[in-house]
């Protein structure tokens, strides 16, 4: 078991290394002078030179790479081209709203989606199933920001139940945090719920066709037991997997949602960086988010052995 955990963790290293190489090459392999692209058309030679020095573009490429990796190892994600502050520090100031919103969204999504999927599979081909599937397709089809604006229009502008935009840290006033976070979370949750509900339903339907389900029925156990004890426990691994891979969608959604709801998180930082062409910031955020994604999926991977005794070696 320890060996298994060790090997799983070790397998993460090459993935993160390739991510780093990829992000590194993204800028260097861009056709044309990267400094000119980042500085924009109206840049003076002095500005270009400043960008080149800041990103180390004058060095040979392997020197650039080793310096860059060395900096990464020390938690140095580079310096912003605009504000001249370290990227790690900028992210650090903005990370908490994003983490809070993300955690709330994941809890909300799993709590809504798994029961939805279970009911749909259990009542396969009834109106409940069709309703869940319709919601799921809809969730995939409407852009996040449209959902956000529709929710604002309805709950905040028309009904005036909730504030339009903004953010309050939970440590300051938890009630206020909730009232301001609930719409962004619902917005973000839509696609995530659609994804998880769909996967829950599909894997349950698959498991319900297995031989051991027939065995359970032959024993005379109740349908409730068949569904939850026998079927859901076997469908757990694919459901967990989709929660992990769906995290990438969540990150994309965060960027959009934070700008719709004016939340001062990493997502807003990303949008500001895009508009200012502040590439070191974009690069730092990509590395951080990819790392988080890999870490979450590692945890999920390790949790498989808890749900399925066959995965243990």
């Amino acid at each position: 078991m320890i060996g298994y955990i060790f090997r799983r963790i070790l397998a993460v290293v090459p993935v993160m290394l390739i991510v780093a190489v990829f992000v590194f090459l993204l800028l260097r392999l861009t056709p044309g002078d990267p400094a000119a692209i980042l500085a924009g058309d109206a840049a003076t030679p002095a500005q270009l030179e400043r960008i080149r020095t800041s990103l180390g573009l004058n060095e040979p490429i392997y020197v650039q790479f080793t310096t860059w990796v060395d900096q990464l190892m020390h938690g140095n994600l580079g310096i912003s081209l605009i504000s001249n502050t370290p990227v790690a520090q900028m992210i650090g100031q903005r990370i908490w709203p994003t983490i809070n919103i993300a955690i709330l969204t994941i809890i909300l999504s799993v709590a809504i989606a798994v029961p939805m999927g279970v009911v749909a599979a259990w009542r396969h081909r009834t109106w409940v199933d069709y309703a869940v599937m319709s919601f799921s397709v809809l969730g995939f089809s409407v852009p996040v920001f449209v959902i956000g604006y529709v929710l604002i229009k309805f709950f905040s502008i028309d009904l005036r139940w909730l504030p339009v935009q903004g953010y309050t840290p939970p440590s300051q006033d938890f009630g206020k945090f909730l009232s301001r976070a609930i719409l962004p979370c619902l917005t973000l949750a839509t696609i995530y719920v659609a994804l998880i509900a769909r996967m829950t339903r599909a894997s349950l339907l698959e498991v319900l066709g297995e031989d051991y389900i027939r065995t359970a029925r032959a024993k005379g156990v109740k349908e409730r037991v068949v569904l939850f004890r026998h079927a859901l426990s076997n469908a757990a691994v694919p459901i967990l997997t989709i929660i992990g891979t769906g995290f990438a969608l969540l990150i994309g959604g965060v960027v959009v949602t934070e700008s719709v709801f004016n939340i001062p998180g990493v997502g807003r930082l990303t949008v500001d960086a895009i508009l200012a062409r502040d590439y070191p910031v974009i690069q730092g955020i990509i590395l951080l988010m990819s790392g988080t994604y890999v870490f979450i999926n590692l945890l999920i991977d390790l949790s498989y052995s808890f749900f399925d005794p066959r995965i243990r070696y």
Partner: protein
Amino acid sequence: MTAAPQPVSGMQTVLGMLSMPKGLRLGVGPTIAAIVLAIIVIASIAAPLYIPHDPLAIDALHRLKGSSEAYLLGTDAYGRDVFSRVMMGGRVSLFIGVGAAMVSVALGLFIGLVSGFFRAADALVMRIMDSLMAIPSILLAIALVALNGPSLWSVISAITIPEIPRVVRLVRSVVLSVREEPYVEAAIALGSSMPKILWQHLMPNTLAPLIVQGTYICASAILVEAILSFLGAGVSTEIPTWGNIMAEGRLYFQIKPMLIFWPGLMLSLCILSINLLGDTARDLLDPRLKKREA
């Protein structure tokens, strides 16, 4: 389970290629989806023939007007006709969707077939694909557009690159399972060369799942284009796309929500129809589902 001999028509051969059940019947939902999608596609392609205004013409006198006879859906902040812009915007959005789907399916098919068969290449290719998938696709697309400029092709490639690993994984999983089939082993024994086996025995098995995956990619590409534009990392703002129109409408959301509503509605209807058709195709083509129904 002996089936009586049946005449074989060309159509049946094609259906056989896709292992599609005979006597294909669409349900109500998919039929509506197909009709809606057909209308949107035709209306977008034919847009230059009937739109009343130049979608780029600025008219300072008619800014943010409501709908009228001259301006069916009103005008935007620059006095441009929203109806003309939305219809023309569909052309670009659909082009990006179809383009991204075709490019990612083609490249993914190639990489997947090669890595599925040559074990030496497989490990490296799959590590690279895993790493690409670890980068959240929106962020990767943002970085690509930020570096390559806001051209149409740079947006298409920014949407395509994150999709490729998913296609590769799909193709590879099909190749790996079909490679174990006795008829492939028989082909090896019959002295067929690897490229021939790949192309004649393995590739046809990937077509059905790729058609399904392609429709999903098409839908998601249209969606991602809108998000990129919304974030300011999309196609140049001079070109009307559904995403661009909505991005510009953001500022006036509180006073004129229809600027977001109309392109948003077209976009959602379009993606919804494509997704529904994708689901239908999957239900028809997925052999596992079929087995359960049989």
